[in-house]
C-alpha cells in the first residue's frame, strides 16, 4: 500500500517532470496528491523537504540501474540497461537536466558521481567487447573515454535534446537507436554481425 508520504513524493516527481522543479507550487502538489495543503505541511515542512525526498528516491533508482553490470557477455546486456534508462527518463527526465540548485549539496555530488559511474561503465563495456574481439582496439586516435562521455550525455540528456527540437522523447527504439549508432563505427566485423543478429531486430520500426 502506498502511504501518504510516498503519494506526495510521487505526485511531486510527476509535476517536476512536466513543469520543472522551480515552477511547481505546493498547492499543485497537494491537488495532484489529492490532499489538503495542511495535510501536506504535516508530512513535509516545505517544498525544499519534498524536493529533497524526491531527489533521494531518484538517486536510489539511478543506483539500482547502475548496480546491474555485465550479466551477459553480449550486447543485450547494455540494451537491457538502456531500456531501464529510457523508463527512468520517461518519468524523471528532470533528474539530469534540471538546473535548479538542489536542496542538499551531498545529493548533488552523488548525482555527479553516478554520472561518472555511467561513463565509466560504458568505457569498461568498450574494453570488454574489445577484449573479446567485437570492438576495435583503443588507440590514441580512438579514445573510448571520450566516446563514452558522449554516449553518457545522450543516455542522460536525450529528453532535453528532443525538447529543444520540439519533439517528444517517448519512442524507446529511437532512443536506443541514437545510442547504438554511436557504437557502430567502432565494431569489428564480428561485432557488427552480432549487432545485426541481436540488436538490430529489436530496434527496427514496426511495419
Amino acid at each position, binding site marked *: 500500500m502506498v502511504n501518504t508520504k510516498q503519494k506526495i513524493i510521487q505526485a511531486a516527481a510527476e509535476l517536476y517532470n512536466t513543469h520543472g522543479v522551480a515552477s511547481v507550487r505546493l498547492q499543485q502538489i497537494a491537488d495532484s496528491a489529492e490532499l489538503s495543503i495542511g495535510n501536506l505541511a504535516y508530512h513535509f515542512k516545505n517544498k525544499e523537504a519534498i524536493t529533497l525526498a524526491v531527489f533521494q528516491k531518484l538517486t536510489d533508482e539511478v543506483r539500482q540501474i547502475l548496480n546491474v*553490470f*555485465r550479466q551477459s*557477455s553480449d550486447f543485450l546486456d547494455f540494451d537491457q540497461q538502456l531500456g531501464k534508462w529510457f523508463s527512468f527518463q520517461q518519468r524523471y527526465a528532470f533528474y539530469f537536466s534540471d538546473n535548479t540548485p538542489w536542496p542538499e549539496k551531498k545529493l548533488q555530488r*552523488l548525482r555527479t*558521481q553516478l554520472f*561518472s*559511474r555511467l561513463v*565509466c*561503465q560504458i568505457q*569498461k563495456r568498450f*574494453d*570488454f567487447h574489445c*577484449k*573479446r574481439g567485437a570492438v576495435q582496439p583503443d588507440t590514441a586516435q580512438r579514445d573510448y573515454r571520450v566516446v563514452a562521455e558522449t554516449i553518457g550525455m545522450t543516455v542522460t540528456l536525450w529528453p532535453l535534446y528532443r525538447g529543444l527540437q520540439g519533439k517528444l522523447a517517448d519512442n524507446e527504439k529511437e532512443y536506443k537507436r541514437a545510442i547504438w549508432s554511436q557504437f557502430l563505427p567502432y565494431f569489428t566485423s564480428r561485432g557488427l554481425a552480432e549487432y545485426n543478429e541481436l540488436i538490430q531486430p529489436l530496434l527496427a520500426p514496426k511495419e
Partner: protein
Amino acid sequence: MNADFYLDEKAYQVLLDACNNMHFTEIVGGVVDFNLLYDDYWLQDSAVIENIRFAKGEWEVYLVFAHYKNPYRLIKRKITSCFCKSKAETCAHYMRRLAAKDQRGTLQVDKNLFQYNGN
C-alpha cells in the same frame, strides 16, 4: 549500507575490470575436465606404502601408490613434512591407513542409507 560510503572512480574501474575478467576466466567446464576420473580410476585398486625421507632439515612423508597387479604402475606423492622423525612416522602410519584400500573388506557402505525422505 552507509549512505556516505562510495568508491572513488579508480576503485570503481578496478571493480568493473574484475567483473569483465570473470567472463574470460570463469567459463563453463567441458567433458574433458572429467578425464581425471578415468585417468585415476586405477588408484582404487592400489597398494599404499609410506616412505619417510630426511631432506632440508625436515622429515618428509611420502605415500607410494602401486597398482596391485602391476607394481610398476605407481605414483609417489609428498603428503607433509615434520621436524621430528617419530612424529613423521606416526603421521605416515595414519596417512597410509587413510589412503589404503580396505583389504579385509570389513567396511561396508549401504547405498540405502543415502536415500532419505526430507518430508
